[in-house]
């Protein structure tokens, strides 16, 4: 290849991708410096959706923060609720009734299904597949959202879990409906894979792109499917066995190269594992109360102390760090957002790739700006 003349060599083009760009998944901005179409520098810029969620939560009661957690990662409100109530339960030492634990697993895995389906759809949308995979994913997601609506009253902002349980019991026929959705989801996955997994263009676009080496992934705190696609076996459902995850048989899929295709495939395989968990949970769920009646939801005042609770949210490790000073509101309330931390190595993944790859690498990291900026 002939090197360009020296006066052309520094002709770099700086593009501000975002905050209003079709595929930055929200109001996220990347200042990208391009040499031709190759990325030589990438600086993420945050804060366009910052609303200081933590400060708001420090002024509200423990109960009143639950609806705000819905709005962190607005695609998976159920798991956000779960991470928060888990931390409060740790902080205040509350026990959860068995049925409520099962319900949590069910809604958590349903959330994982719909998040991963959406993500795969969005990723392919970023690759330019004109919405077809996204529409199929949304078609299935609608069914899960319908379940959430009939359970909690709201499709996305569920506000459903409570410390020591869930807000209300399952409506009649909900379990059968959920089982039906889970069964249908399996055939949807087959369909989705037939549409795209073998597709030559998808493979050409995603293989070898945005490789994340396992060492860097661990050091940079990448969690969730992005980490497991790099081959690191770390699933908090297995490590912490929070809730009742030790009762279910499921496997943790691992990628081997850590590129975009692995991140896509790991999510697909994880959905299949989630379906297995759902199948077990929906059959095993016992009868009983869903909320400990002795626990005061309103006016909860945990003893002074602190707790860090975390769960495997669909995007990675979602943690809540709470310090109580004995008052009705947490003294310190901190969200450990998986989306933000997973973005740490975005530049490393993108360098040397083209601008078209930046979009799909960002898509495969799976961020939601409500959580990144909080």
């Amino acid at each position: 290849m002939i090197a360009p003349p020296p006066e052309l060599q520094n002709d770099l083009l700086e593009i501000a991708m975002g905050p209003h760009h079709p595929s930055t998944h929200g109001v996220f901005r990347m200042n990208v410096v391009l040499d031709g179409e190759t990325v030589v520098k990438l600086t993420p810029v945050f804060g366009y959706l910052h609303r200081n969620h933590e400060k708001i939560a420090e002024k509200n009661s423990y109960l009143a923060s639950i609806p705000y957690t819905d709005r962190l990662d607005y695609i998976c409100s159920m798991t956000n609720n779960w991470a928060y109530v888990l931390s409060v339960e740790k902080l205040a030492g509350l026990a959860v009734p068995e049925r409520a634990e099962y319900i949590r697993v069910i809604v958590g895995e349903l959330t994982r299904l719909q998040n991963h389906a959406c993500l795969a759809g969005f990723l392919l949308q970023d690759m330019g597949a004109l919405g077809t995979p996204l529409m199929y994913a949304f078609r299935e997601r609608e069914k899960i959202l319908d379940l959430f609506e009939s359970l909690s009253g709201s499709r996305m902002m569920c506000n459903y879990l409570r410390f020591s349980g869930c807000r209300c019991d399952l409506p009649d026929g909900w379990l059968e409906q959920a089982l039906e959705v889970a069964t249908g989801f399996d055939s949807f996955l087959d369909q989705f894979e037939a549409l795209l997994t073998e597709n030559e263009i998808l493979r050409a676009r995603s293989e070898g792109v945005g490789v994340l080496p396992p060492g860097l992934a661990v050091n940079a705190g990448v969690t969730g499917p992005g980490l497991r696609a790099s081959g690191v076996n770390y699933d908090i459902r297995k490590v912490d066995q929070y809730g009742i995850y030790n009762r279910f048989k499921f496997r943790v899929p691992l990628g081997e190269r850590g590129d975009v295709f692995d991140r896509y495939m790991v999510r697909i395989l994880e959905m299949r594992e989630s379906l297995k968990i759902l199948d077990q949970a929906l059959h095993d769920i016992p009868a009983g109360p869903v909320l400990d009646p002795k626990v005061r939801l309103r006016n909860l005042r945990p003893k002074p102390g602190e707790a860090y609770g975390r769960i495997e949210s669909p995007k990675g490790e979602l943690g809540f760090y709470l310090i109580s000073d004995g008052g009705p509101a947490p003294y310190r309330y901190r969200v450990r957002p998986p989306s933000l931390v997973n973005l740490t190595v975005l530049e490393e993944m993108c360098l040397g790739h083209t601008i078209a790859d930046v979009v799909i690498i960002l898509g495969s990291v799976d961020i939601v700006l409500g959580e990144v900026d909080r």
Partner: protein
Amino acid sequence: MNALDSIFISALHWLAGLAPAPVRPLVSMLLIIAGLMAAFGTCFALATILERKTLGRMQNRFGPNRVGPFGLFQPLADGIKMLIKEDIVPFSADKTLHFLAPLALTAPVWMAFAVLPFGRNMSAIELDAGILFFFAIGSASELAVFMAGWSSQNKYSLVGAMRAIAQMISYEVPLVLAAVPVLMAAGSLSLPDIVQAQSGVALGWVPRWNIFTPWGLAGFALFFIAATAESNRCPFDLPEGESELIAGYLTEYSGFKYALFFLGEYLGLFAVAGLAVTLFLGGWQAPARWLEWFPSWGWFAAKFSALIFLFIWVRATLPRLRLDQLLNFAWKFLVPLALINLFAAAVWWKLPAAMAIRWLLCAGLLAVPYVWLGRHWNGVTPKRRHYGYAQ
């Protein structure tokens, strides 16, 4: 020739006959132009709505169905909306070029329709080198696209325009090369002659269309792929790849200028689809003799619509390639294959007809390089991956 078949020609003669004799050729020409513009203008309107509805159906939606019966007046509403939208010209844009670009895109595309035979004796001008004229006109759109990208003074527009230039120049080559075997077969550059050369049937029932030969099938596939790229459609819509470049060279266009670009792109698509019908699908010929009661222009329209549907179908399914892969694909896959196809076509014509061996030989000549090039054009051979599980 029945009356229905020649209805447009008779109508033209009748209308032109109303004019005084000295201006009759001029009037006749103007009538043809008006007819073409009306027909393909309507076609554009219909194609937008049908594309949206088909895409919708493929995505399990309904598509536009609110304006008029079945949403058929949607293009009208869109047109009105486009007309009354504010026409924004960026402050630092090169205003003249910015204004001229949509015109420069749309005007030449109309000229391409002049040489297409839409039915028996139905081409506006019968140029002896019609196909050359067509390709010459077709490549004029590159200039317009670059004008649009450059004059907008927008980085996304510029990147989009650069991509468009690289892509369109690369794909001209396989587009033309894929058409050459047909010219060899017909022995003429005139499009009506090419259609005529595809008349009749082989083996008693297979029409002698070029697509029913190995080199014709390969040529059609190559032509189709190159045409998709030429008309900037998915999966080759990189110049305006919305997930990467917002709208590429169209980023700074709004209102009617944007609509003109849209029109130009669709007309380009129609022209190239019309050419594909002419070159490979037997033009306006009916597939069998007993089907000739259906007018020739009707057959053209049917094949044309099927091809447009194929374009839409592909668009609904595939993700987009990356620029380097796109160029690799053109130069390392399409161009070599098109050259081999040329050779295969030559072999075909040298071997005696009605021999099964010429079928096998030709198909083998194409299949082996296809497999080899298909594995290697991208530089990497993807392996089947296995995913382990941690227990």
